[in-house]
């Protein structure tokens, strides 16, 4: 599904040049659950941003099926995100002025083959709290709304940046269960980046990054269910 060759990203901050990615060669397969592990500064977020069309590489190629994402403009990238990608953020990023259902609807309204917002919220176990505003929901609930929002447009790939980073372990596991269920039931390719090693156990593949490079890829023979995880 994704295919990258020699992907490099260099930032210039003031007079300092930072090499965030130093040549990434990787393939992501359809319907897989991949976890990208790495310490902060390892380049995992930069990589995820480029996959999601939020940022472009300085050098190298990135393909999404037959689309070349390396040389596209902002309009094309917006369309790519709109049609193919669902995002889940560390800090949920819900729209405070919209209810849970409306937060989902704002995405389904612009999608071509969306799920009903109610269905998406049911998938993450929030059917009962659809008409609550973000300020009335707990952190875990807010993150599950964010997952519902990401999956409701029926994306091909779900990109999750530290989805449990701001949650305690119990709530975090509820969120991971939601992701697991989406991956299993809808077949959505799911890529989670985290520095929490425990989460790697629920993945099909674990991609370790350090210093802007891929340090290793392991395949789990058995995926551990999310509810068995503890940290």
């Amino acid at each position, binding site marked *: 599904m994704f295919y990258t060759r020699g992907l490099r990203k260099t930032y210039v901050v003031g007079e300092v040049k930072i090499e965030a990615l130093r040549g990434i060669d990787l393939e992501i397969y359809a319907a897989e659950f991949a976890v990208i592990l790495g310490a902060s500064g390892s380049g995992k*977020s930069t990589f995820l941003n480029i996959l999601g069309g939020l940022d472009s590489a300085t050098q190298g190629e990135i393909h999404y099926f037959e689309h070349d994402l390396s040389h596209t403009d902002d309009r094309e990238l*917006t369309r790519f*995100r*709109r049609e193919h*990608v669902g995002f889940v953020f560390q800090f949920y990023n819900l*729209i405070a*002025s919209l209810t849970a259902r*409306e937060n989902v609807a704002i995405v389904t309204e612009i*999608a071509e083959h969306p799920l009903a917002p109610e269905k998406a919220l049911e998938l993450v176990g929030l059917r009962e709290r659809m008409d609550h505003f973000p300020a009335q929901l707990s952190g875990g609930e807010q993150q599950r709304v964010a997952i519902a929002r*990401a999956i409701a447009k029926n994306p091909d790939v779900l990109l999750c940046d530290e989805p449990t980073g701001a949650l305690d372990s119990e709530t975090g596991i509820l969120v991971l269960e939601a992701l697991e269920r989406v991956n299993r039931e809808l077949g959505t390719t799911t890529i989670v980046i985290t520095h929490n090693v425990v989460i790697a156990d629920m993945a099909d593949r674990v991609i370790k990054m350090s210093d802007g490079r891929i340090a290793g890829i392991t395949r789990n023979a058995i995926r551990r269910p999310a509810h068995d995880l503890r940290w």
Partner: protein
Amino acid sequence: MRTLDRKWLRELWQMRGQALAIALVIASGVATYILSESTIDSLVYTQRDFYSSTRFAEVFASLKRAPLALAGSIAEIPGVAHSEVRVAAPVKLEVPGFAEVVNGLILTLPDAASGIDRLYLRSGRFPDPDEDDAVVINESFAEAQGLHPGDTVAATINGRLKTLKIAGVVLSPEFVYLLRPGDFFPDYKRYGVFWMNRKPLSMAYGMDGAFNDVILTLAPGATQAAVISRLDRLLGPWGGVGAIGRDDQTSHHYLTEEVNQLRVQATIMPAIFLGVAAFLLNVVIGRLIRQQRETVAILKAFGYGNGAIAAHYLKLVGLIVVVGAVTGTAVGAWLAHGLSGIYSEFFRYPYMHFVLRPQVPLVASGISAGAAFLGTIEAVGRASSMSPAQALHPEPPLVFHETWLERAGARNVLSQGGRMILRNIARRPVKSALTMLGVALACSIVTVGGLFNDAVSYMVDVQFNRSEHADLTVTFTDTTSPRAVSELAGVPGTTKAEPFRFVPVRLRNGNHSYRTAIQGYPTDATLFQLRNTALQPVRVPQSGLLLTDFLARRLDVHPGDRVTIEVLSGARQVVSARLAGVVKEFAGMNAYMSMDAVQRMLPEERGISGVRLRVARGHEQEVYAALRDRPRVAAVTSRAAAMRSFHDLMAQNILIYAAVMLFLAGTIAVGVIYNSTRVALSERAFELATLRVLGLTHREIGYILLGETGLLTLIAIPAGFAIGYGFAAYVAYRLASALYRVPVVLERATLGRAALVIVVATVLSSIYAYVRLGRLDLVAVLKTRE
């Protein structure tokens, strides 16, 4: 420099666009205040100086004719300091190269001994005591007609032609604002005032050994009313029409009204600007402090006290105020200088003292600082009172609710973006309302700025088109036989002639009295149309009296009541008449009766004062020429010429005024809309970037951000019209005087202009915000929490 000072200076630099917009609004407030106050001071000071150096009279009286011997009795009235008796003669003039008749007034040259109403010589010289044909003329007339010392004009005084030699050009305290009696607007080309030696004037006007005008000054401690009453008793038998004090003297009255108008401006405009500035500072500084929550916590954790933190933000605000106040003072002083140039066109002073009392900018700056302080103190107080631990925590999430509009059913038609717009407005109702109010105030300034133009056009329309239907109005030197009507109707080119009669009177109801003239018209008059308070045409009733509504209120009489009429000429009858109704008039305070009723009131004095003429198209010049040289004709006024001269006079000044208003309103509109867009952009960058990441386009998030400002602006425009109308009504109420009442009229073009200013400011601010939206940092959103 201390580090904390460096911090606010840098932050101010980062928000320089917003700070500048606020400083501009403050500057506009200070400038309007300085402009008004400095102009008031300059006018009042110049007036006082000119009056005292020329010894402007305090009481004025005119009469039919009295022997010079009476002058001694006038001087002996207790309370009179100096008095002077004069001859005042109406005159018709022929100016070389000017086809129309020019009317004028010739007065006796001031007596060097009494020294009242001295003339200020601008060029040339005063006539020698033995010169018979030398005159000095007032400056505005000389300028308008291009007359200089050495030129001559042909004058008809009392039916006799006399060539007058212009010796000099002068200014007089009596005619700082020169208006032909009965006119509403100055017409410098067609009305002039001349002064000449007593003897030749008396001879020419048939006043040898007599006088018909008195001016006097009061001794310290004297009561004006007592002096006037004694003077009236003295002059009554000699045809005195009632003395007036300086307050009722035309030129002085207009000057006073002008200062009143400026005082109204000096309160309304700065209040609007400084109120808006306070609101803007509240919004902008409030946002800055919310963003710096953690910084404040860290500073406090390091040991900075509440005072230091509060002072730090107040210094930032202080610099904005200083920049605004200094700019405003400079611009205000500059505008005041410019305005005095415009005033010198209307008000003829030999000099215009520019007065800027140091306390005026100080007061303006103080008020600005106070407004700014009020605007920011809440936000600053919040920052300094937070405990460090509390401040280190992020602000709790914002609480939203469904709006009543959605509950009422809009839910089903609104997109998510539409809901966000509505809920954002509803979540902070005070801020939204104030933003709306700020924009509405900008709109109202343009609206009320158009009042004078619209009201004056309307007054002119009512006066010249809807009331006055005569092409020419002929006034006789004296009451004349009614036969003159048919005589004038026979002049070739005349299609209709209607007489009128003026009777000087004092109207009285209990303690209230007012000196005016009763105007008599035929009940079937068509060349002059009176209108009731709904501006519907009414006829003069067969019996009874009609009064201008403002005069009826002044006398406290209502239709059906009786009014005492003291006739101030001839046999000086005192009669009583029933008030038959009131009529609407925007200028003057007049009384109307039918011609027959006037004859019944004055059985011994049958006659007419003048005739209104309708003239066949294209024959005006011909009729004019036939009338102007007739000996009993004192004046011939042309409606078309009066309108022309009025438009020439007003056009330029109203344009300047409108331009200044547009600019001032523009600063508010841009200040409010730009700042609220900036703040909205900053507050919602996180949310909007999230939506971009989720796949919404630049345009879609643009709608969500700008929809809010757009919606508020849309509500603000009609609200601005309403507020503008309110201000206009207030201004009209404050300015209503015996001279004129400004009607509250706002034309569509004025409202359109007001809306346009707001729309342009909104579009410009929106374009700016839209471009900025394109540069949102999407990556940063994923990692930061707001």
